[in-house]
Each structure stands twice: as C-alpha cells, then as structure tokens.
C-alpha cells in the first residue's frame, strides 16, 4: 500500500521558504471567499473592490490619479517601522507584542513636544522641531519597551503579557489626554488636541506619503547591516537560535534583551512620531488602529528579513486599504482584512512544515 510519509530534510528548503508565504496568501484569499459567500457577498466583486481600493484602476492611473496607491503606501509606513522593530526582537525570541503601545507612546511624546515647545521655548528655530520630535518619539517607544525588557532580563517576567498589557495602558493614556487635559479648547468638543505648528509637520513626498517612508527604508538597511555584518547582529542571531550556546560563548543575554527591546520599541515609537507628524498633525483618535498587531504578521510573513518586511508591509497595507474600501462601497465589515491576515498566518504556519520536511510516497 502507498502511504504518505513526512521525512525530515537535512537542510531547510530555500525555495519552500519563499513559496510557502505566497501559497498561504492565495489559500487565505480562498478561505476568505468561502466566508464572504457565507456572508452573502460576492467574493469576486469584493476582491476586485479591495484591489481597486488598494491600488486604483488603470483609468485612474492614466488620468495621473495615484491616490489609492499612495494611501496604501501611507498605511505601509507604520507597518514597516513596527514590523522592523518586532522582527528584530523576534530574532532573539523576545516576544514584543507591544508595538502598538510603543507606537502610541512615540506619537504621544512627539505630539506633546510639538504642542508644548512653542510655549516653552518660543525662540527655538523651527528646523529643530522635527529632529527633536524624532528623538523624543523614539525614546518614548524605547522606554515603553524597556520596562518589559528589564523585567524579562533580570526577573524573568513573561514579556508577552507585560508588553501586551502596556498596550492597553498606553492607549488609555493617550485617550485621556486628547479627551481631557490636552483637548483643543477651540475644537468644538471634537476629541483631539490643537493642530501642531507647521514646523512640526513631516514633509511629504507624493500624495500623503511622508518622510516616514525614508525612515523605514533607512531603518531596514541599517538593521540588515547590523544583523548580517556586525558582532552585535551575530549575537542577536545566536541567542535566537540557541540560548545556551550563546551563553557558553560568553554573550551577555540580559544586556542584549535590553538593547534589542529598546531598538524594537524605538522603531515603533518612530512609527508613532511619523504618523502624528506626517498624517494627523495632531493627537486624536485613529493612532492606535492595530498597526502594532499587524506588524507581527508582517514580521512572520517576511521571515524576519528586513527587506522582506518592507515588501510584506505594502502587501498587508493593501489589504487594510482594500478592507476600508469594501466597507465604504459594499458595506462589508473592514475587519475582513484582519480575518484574511490571521488566515494567511495560519496557512503559513501550517505550510512551514514543508520547508523542514518533505512528503514522500512510500510503499
């Protein structure tokens, strides 16, 4: 009788490593089609609307209208930065699930700087605003990640739970500010702070795409350099692959946890700074919309590769923009995008077995 048997590969398959995420994406779309059909929607038309929502139509492009495409890039920016931050932490198996809160704290600190600096230091030249906001935003994100990192490094407190709990605290804190003490008195009761001075606006490249994109690309390159070309990067990878080997090799694990978490949180904080300085120009609802969670999927689909993160971020941003689109034009819940994200990750996790094992027909 013929039977299927799993056989361990001597080396993980490289082609499968690339193929599995692609196939997972397709299978997730098929799963989504079933769900949409059950929900009484036409899957083909829904996906078409999502695609057009995310990238626009040829007629729009011919008319020089790239709005949808640039909006996808706008959403990709925080995903890239958070995804990079999360993936470097995941490299050494520090499970930072708190990118969302770190992003919020980065936005809070950068926004606070933009709001209060004109009063505190009126003579400060305008060109100093953005660099200051950048530093402060990154620092706030880093500090928000440092609390769980220190607890993990020195007391072995589970970082998954602490990073996650700090998300809720950060989000509530920011809400408190723009609903309460920082609310714009001239805002007609609208929850949000006053608009930042223009010196605190991040320059835009095309459409609403702002300098955050450049930050993300630079960050990806730097992380690639650090991971592949430096001793520190080697230590990070070693800890991720074999903690005891790293310890025997004399790697200071606690110090690396703290440093990597700070970098991870700093990148998420930078994402928050870029969001408030590049898009909203004030602190308001809509900063914490789940980028930090989607970043986990980004990191995993990209197999923690920094350039992969850039690519996958655009793809998942397209899903998000497409999700918003079907909410507007087809009255379907935008959370369809989240369902698809989760499904992609499921299929990829399942499919990963083919990178490490091969299927054999045996007699």
């Amino acid at each position, binding site marked *: 009788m013929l039977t299927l048997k799993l056989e361990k590969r001597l080396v993980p398959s490289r082609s499968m490593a690339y193929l599995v995420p692609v196939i997972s994406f397709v299978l997730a779309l098929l799963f989504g089609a079933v769900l949409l059909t059950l929900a009484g929607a036409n899957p083909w038309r829904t996906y078409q609307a999502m695609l057009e929502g995310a990238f626009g139509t040829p007629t729009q492009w011919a008319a020089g209208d790239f709005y949808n495409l640039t909006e996808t890039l706008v959403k990709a920016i925080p995903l890239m930065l958070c995804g990079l931050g999360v993936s470097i932490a995941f490299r050494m198996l520090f499970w930072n699930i708190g990118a969302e809160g770190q992003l919020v704290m980065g936005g809070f600190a950068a926004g606070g700087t933009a709001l209060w600096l004109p009063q505190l230091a009126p003579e400060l030249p305008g060109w100093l605003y953005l660099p200051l906001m950048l530093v402060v935003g990154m620092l706030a994100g880093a500090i928000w990640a440092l609390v769980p990192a220190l607890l993990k490094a020195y007391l072995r407190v*589970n970082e998954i739970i602490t990073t996650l709990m700090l998300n809720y605290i950060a989000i509530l804190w920011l809400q408190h500010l723009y609903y309460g003490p920082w609310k714009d008195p001239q805002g007609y009761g609208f929850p949000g702070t006053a608009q930042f001075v223009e010196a605190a606006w991040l320059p835009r490249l095309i459409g609403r795409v702002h300098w955050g994109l450049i930050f993300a690309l630079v960050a990806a390159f730097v992380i690639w350099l650090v991971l592949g070309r430096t001793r520190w990067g080697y230590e990070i990878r070693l800890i991720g692959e074999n903690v005891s080997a790293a310890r025997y090799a004399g790697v200071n694990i606690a110090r690396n946890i703290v440093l990597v978490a700070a970098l991870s949180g700093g990148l998420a904080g930078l994402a928050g700074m870029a969001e408030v300085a590049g898009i909203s120009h004030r602190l308001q609802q809509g900063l914490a919309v789940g980028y930090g969670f989607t970043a986990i999927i980004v990191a995993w689909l990209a197999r923690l590769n920094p350039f992969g993160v850039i690519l996958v971020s655009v793809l998942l941003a397209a899903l998000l923009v497409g999700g918003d689109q079907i909410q507007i034009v087809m009255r379907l819940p935008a959370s*369809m995008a989240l369902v698809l994200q989760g499904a992609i990750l499921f299929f990829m*996790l399942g499919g990963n077995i083919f990178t490490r094992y091969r299927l054999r027909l045996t007699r």
Partner: protein
Amino acid sequence: MELDLFVSILTITVRAGTSLVFATLGEIITERAGILNLGVEGMMIMGAVTAFAAAFHSGSAVVGLLVALAVGGLLALIHAFLTISLRADQTVSGLALTIFGSGLASFLGQRLGPAGSPLVGQVGPRFEKVIVPVLADIPGLGPVLFRQDALVYAMYVLVPLAWFIMYKTRPGLHLRAIGESPHTADAMGVNVIGLRYLYTVLGGMLVGLGGAHLSLAYTPGWTENLTSGRGWIAIALVIFATWNPARAVLGALLFGGVNAIQFRLQAAGTTIPAAFLNMLPYAFTIIVLVLITWWEAFRKRVGAPAALGLPYMREERT
C-alpha cells in the same frame, strides 16, 4: 449600609471573575498538556459573539452556550492541528489565533444581527439570576455566592472537579505527564498526541464558555472589543495560579475585585479620570505577574510544565 456596600462589591467580584475563571481553567488544562495557546483572547471573543448571536436567533441562552463551547473547541482544534501535527511554533500560532479570532468576531458582530445587520445594541436571551433557596439566605455569604446566574454555579462545580481530576485520578496523572515529560509518558503507553489534542480542544471549549458568560450574563449583548484583554489576563493568571485550578479561582476573584472597585468608584462619581480606572486591571496584571515571578524564583520553584511549548516528535528524542 457599610455591610451592604461590601456585599455588593463582593457580588460583582464573583460575577466579574467568572469568565476569567473559565478562561484561566481552560488555559491551565491546555498548558498542563504541554501546549501553550496564546489564542485565549481570540477564542474568548469568538465565544462571546457566537454565543450571543446563537442565543439571539434561537431565543435560548442554552443554545448560545453550546455554540460558544463548539466554537471555542473548533478554534483550539486549529491551534492543535498546527502545533501538534504540523509542529508549528506555538507562540506564533497562538498569536495568529488571537488576531484571526478578533478579526472574525468583529466581522461576525457586524453581520449576524437580524437580516445581516450588526449585532451591536440588540437585546437577546440571557442567563438570569437564580436564587438558591435556603443557601441564599445565609447572612453575608448567601447573597454573594448564591444569588448569581447558572454559569457561576457551573463554575463552583467545575473548579473542584478539575482540581480533583488533575491531582487525584489516573487521567489527571496522564495529563500532567504529557506536559512534563512526553517521551516518558509515551514509553508508558500514554497516547501523547491524542491527549494533547483532547486537552487543547477541551481548554478551548472552557475559554469559549468564558466568552459566553460575558455576552450572556455579565454584560449581556455584544459590543466591539467586549473581552478587552481578559483573555490575556487569563494567561497571566495561569502563571499566577502556578498551573493549579484552585489557585486560579483566587487570582480570577482578585481581578473580579479590581473590576468591582472600578465599577463602584465610577458609580460613586469619583474625580479620578475614567481612563485611570480603566487602566487598573492591566497595571494590576503586570504588578501581580512581577510579584509572583519574583516569589517563585525566590522559592526556587518552576511552576511551568517542563515540556510546555515544545513540539513532541516521537522519532526525534531530545
């Protein structure tokens, strides 16, 4: 007056803690079998939304409860298949389950109302308070423990039962064995793979039950983010409980108490901003987790099952 206030706080404490007890108990059983399932938040919120939707359409809270059990079990089955059979990373699979469950719950919540409309704001059947005769009249304790809904009473039965099975019976010994040392258990003839599937699914069902208590009894109805992190708090409580069902009750009631105090302060019109009150459970989780981790390390105890999070491969001995 003083006593009344105290009794009312304790009553809310029990009610608020019930969903946490179910979810924590479910995760304890799963982790005892060696499977870490971080999808509790996703399973719980799916349990909540499907329980309410099923109860709403069928007109029966019991049907809602059964659906939540099935949905929790099914979602846990995905995790079991991925991590046990396909040997996927348990941490990532659990996170995927939470993201997937939260997204799907939000999707369903917007479609499962009457004629494809949202469920938010609908009123459906619920588990009403059942006053236990005689017992409810015990001064002090009576109103706290015996003027509750049926699911609270189910909790009174389930927790000692789980404790008894886990520590005093042969199946319980097997459960602990497959989480501590699956190879030894296998050598003794215990079906490691089968039991890990069983307890992962059973754990998911209990988590679904926790979600059902939220939408059918505690705050009847459906709102977005109904669970608001309770699933994650449950995972923290597993550590607090050192994987022991009896201690899980203590932890869950502690959190129920935080909720009750939050409620009371809000009702009394405190000057503390609502945001800070709402932060309490999350800040409290971190503090409790730090203290228990420090305390267990101080006593040189490792509470976690030794094989927690590791895939079991018969052919690859480690």
